């Protein structure tokens, strides 16, 4: 049946991430952003709650729970409620683990997952975005060519989360007109990882450019073997993650604004008493709900084993538009104060733009 209530397990997981964010992130998000880094301990604590490995079978180091896009969506919303950079840093390994676990061959699962699903957080990631105008994840310029039983990768990538510290990454590349994912190991010949990128937002998240120059990987590096991956599904899982994080950011902006509008007095009464402010807050509330529901709808399709191409595409599109609008309202309602970096709405405003600009920062 159509159901919006959380199961016991969903509620438990959501609550534990919510508590973690409250304890470790909420009050530190601004400082992390200014410092440009996230304390390793904060990442490790989230990792220990199993956000990237719970859906991996026990034999490969996971918790052996069901691979659940809805559960991951709940987790990402909570993490991004604290800080989106934190959400991406914590779940970057999902970009590697989820596709391998979901679409890898048995041999690939066996050889790749145990290294990624360890007790300590280790960085694994995926390189999808490309630094050119008109970037579209379905028309990749990075190419893979078959040569002597190996694959030769060429191309430029950007916005690869945590690439400099990543032990292995999946590289999205076009092989004879089909989009595929290839495992590239740290230090591989022809692979170069750039300095930390300077971005509009997500200051505390390290993202890097990645260049592949005749980078040769063995045949086994192609996820899914000869039949490759269901790339639409890869994109859907990444897009639902984006929409889920957007819901978290918008909820955060909304909560700040609600409190502020009740506390801030002008003309002798709280500004929340004015319809011009109150109506904006009402809109922020239902649009945040809408973003979450669109993410859940797409995740529900995946959970039922159906294609979520359409639903995930629309969810990310909507989330990109609306997160920007909502976080804009967030700054606007705080007025001059909203423009000051110490007020968290400022960070949310910058970070919100990433939802429509970028792809594949996390996976559900």
């Amino acid at each position, binding site marked *: 049946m159509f159901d919006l209530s959380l199961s016991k397990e969903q509620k438990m997981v959501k609550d534990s991430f919510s508590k973690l964010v409250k304890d470790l992130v909420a009050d530190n998000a601004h400082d992390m952003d200014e410092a440009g880094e996230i304390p390793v301990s904060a990442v490790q604590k989230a990792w220990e709650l199993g956000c990237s490995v719970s859906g991996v079978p026990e034999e490969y180091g996971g918790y052996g729970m069901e691979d659940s896009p809805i559960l991951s969506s709940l987790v990402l919303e909570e993490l991004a409620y604290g800080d989106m950079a934190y959400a991406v840093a914590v779940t970057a390994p999902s970009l590697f683990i989820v596709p391998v676990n979901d679409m890898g061959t048995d041999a690939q699962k066996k050889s790749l997952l145990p290294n990624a699903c360890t007790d300590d957080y280790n960085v694994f990631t995926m390189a999808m975005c490309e630094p050119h105008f008109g970037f579209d994840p379905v028309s990749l310029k990075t190419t893979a060519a078959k040569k002597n039983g190996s694959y030769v990768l060429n191309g430029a990538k950007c916005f690869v989360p945590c690439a400099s510290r990543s032990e292995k990454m999946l590289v999205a590349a076009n092989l004879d007109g089909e989009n595929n994912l290839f495992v590239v190991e740290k230090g591989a010949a022809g692979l170069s990882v750039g300095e930390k990128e300077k971005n509009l937002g997500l200051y505390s998240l390290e993202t890097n450019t990645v260049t592949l120059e005749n980078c040769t990987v063995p045949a086994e590096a192609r996820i899914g073997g000869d039949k490759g991956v269901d790339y639409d599904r890869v994109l859907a899982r990444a897009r639902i993650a984006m929409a889920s994080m957007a819901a978290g950011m918008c909820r955060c902006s909304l909560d700040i604004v*609600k409190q502020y509008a009740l506390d801030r007095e002008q003309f002798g009464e709280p500004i929340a*008493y004015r319809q011009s402010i109150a109506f904006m807050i009402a809109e922020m509330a239902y649009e945040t709900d809408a973003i979450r529901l669109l993410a859940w709808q797409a995740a529900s399709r995946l959970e039922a084993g159906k294609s979520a191409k359409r639903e995930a595409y629309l969810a990310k599109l909507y989330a990109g538009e609306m997160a920007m609008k909502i976080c804009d309202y967030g700054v606007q309602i705080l007025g001059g104060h909203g423009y000051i970096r110490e007020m968290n709405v400022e960070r949310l405003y910058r970070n919100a733009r990433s939802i429509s600009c970028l792809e594949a920062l996390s996976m559900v």
Partner: protein
Amino acid sequence: MINLELPDYLDNLKTQMKGFAEGLLRPISRKYDEAEHVYPVELDVLRGMKVMGRPKKKEGEEKPKKDVERKNGANLSQAVTVEAICWGDVGLMLSIPGAGLGNAAIAAVATDEQMERFGDKWAAMAITEPASGSDAGSIQTTAVLDGDEWVLNGEKIFVTCADRCDAVVVWANVDPTAGKAGIKSFIVEKGTPGFTLEKLEHKLGIRASDTGTFVLKDCRIPKENILGSAEVKKSTEGFKGVMKTFDNTRPMVAAMSNGVASAALEFLKDKVEAQDIKLDYHENTNNVSATQKEYYLMEANLEAMKLLTYKASWMADEKIFNNVEASMSKAKAGKAGTLITQKVCELLGPMGFSREHLAEKWMRDSKILDIFEGTGQIQHLIVARNILKLSRNQLK
């Protein structure tokens, strides 16, 4: 457990209702838009269809046990049904015999005895007055108990199905000194002396639906025709009670908007695809034509409208207080539905301005859905007051 997939039986219901709308409503859609105020006789076959009602209690029927396989409830089915029928024609849906908003009010609060008397009647709803629109608490119509009868006096405007209905649920104040707390609703049957239909309005859209003005002059109705308790409480609890009807009807108006918007979008999609332009959710929206991008944005909005509507309906079914969510669904669907139908006409160019096609009609029809059952502004006010926990004196 979270699952936003509609169950198969609701999917089937949707398909079935859409088929019905396509076969019965679409062919006469233009006809009754042009022939304003003429009763669509084709709808006679639908008399008694429970779009807004609730089934009468059957003898010996027990409440379904919980824990057995849980199914979605009546409100969600209704949201799906209303959406599909309004994909056909919203003006005609409002004209389905027995599917009045008064029926929804009766279904929500009627006693079994009242259900027996009025359950089969086509009931309109009369709240608005010349001087009371959004401020429903300020209505001037009065009801005075005289022996075994209520005596009603006042004027009611914008009553949907005014001409065709069998009875009208009339809001009136039993104690004007008590203010809003004195407002109660009464069932007034057609033909009651002192109850006169004065005129029918000429409207922008939903022209198939007859909207009229009633005058109540010393109109006497039986004492038992009051819906809910006659007691005037000191607090405004009673008024809040009557307003609660809206928690069920607002998501239905949102569903109407979803239906009209989906009709417009589907029409646009057909025309776009006929030009061999793909709408396959594939390319980056920045790399496609403006028409394609606008289409995708509208479809995403339609999904948002639908999901907010389903949420509010699901909550009603689960007996979760849904006052905020009901208003959220209507605020979003009313506004976005209006914008979608406007944009579809824009993108259609000359085809969007021509009465040869239904797009222009949908643009006119959808506008009412951001107005009746509480304007978009009222919905925002309700949402804001609730989430900011402000009283009506604080946030006016």
